[in-house]
């Protein structure tokens, strides 16, 4: 029974994720796309739970839903006459764009089904403590570099988005 429920939940998460991703990409109205992205992020967070990645699921909700999605929706509100902006959303190159997408899909599927993945079956364990240890020992330098990157991005974003000095004076 539990097994069946967990399978049902797994497929539900997959359907939510893929379905809302399709809405994000193909819906004509920007605001619908932005809100569909919310469901994609939640779907991926749910799949992280299935992968025994508890910390990642939490940070997915915090960073993607709480941070990135808020920024994107904010961007939509700032930049558009959102409810009327249905034109011109698609390029005329839909079928041309299909070619590289199909090539990527083909290569990915080829690798996926021909590679000999080594899979080790082992029980689910909480990962947060192990992640913390790894981040402060093996991956300490990348961790610090990431924090410098975030600081640089913060300063750069503020500098870019700020109005120019002469705009203020007028």
């Amino acid at each position: 029974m539990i097994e069946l429920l967990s399978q049902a939940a797994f497929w539900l998460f997959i359907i939510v994720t893929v379905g809302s991703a399709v809405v994000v990409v193909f819906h004509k109205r920007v605001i619908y796309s932005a809100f569909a992205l919310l469901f994609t992020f939640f779907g991926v967070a749910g799949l992280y739970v299935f992968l025994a990645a508890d910390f990642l699921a939490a940070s997915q909700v915090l960073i993607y839903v709480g941070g990135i999605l808020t920024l994107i929706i904010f961007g939509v509100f700032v930049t558009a006459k959102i409810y009327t902006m249905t034109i011109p959303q698609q390029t005329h190159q839909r079928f041309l764009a299909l070619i590289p997408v199909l090539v990527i899909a083909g290569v990915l599927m080829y690798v996926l089904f021909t590679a000999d993945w080594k899979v080790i079956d082992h029980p689910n364990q909480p990962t947060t403590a192990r992640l913390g240890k790894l981040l402060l020992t093996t991956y300490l330098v990348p961790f610090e570099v990431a924090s410098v990157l975030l600081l640089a991005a913060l300063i750069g974003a503020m500098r870019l988005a700020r109005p120019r000095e002469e705009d203020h004076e007028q």
Partner: protein
Amino acid sequence: MFPSLNHYLILSAALFCIGAAGVLTRKNAIIIFASIELMLNAVNLAFAAFARHWGDVSGQIFVIFSLAVAAAEVAVGLAIIVALFRHKESVNIDDVNLMKW
């Protein structure tokens, strides 16, 4: 074991292709951003799946770094879009050809 590695990898490939289609076909810069986020999410999912099935949490560390880079990318990207909108009153990428030629 039911959700096998292949389930996650196929899902990840599908998400990545949907995102790539969005980047290639949409003209609104914000939707292109959303599509890039979809592709990043697909790659993160693959990392987490490999971490789970190989029994090594290093894969999850990569997801954390990728999250940090995604956050930085969105902050800078949206700042560019806001600056662009202030200049051109548009987020249509066809209007942005300043650095094209």
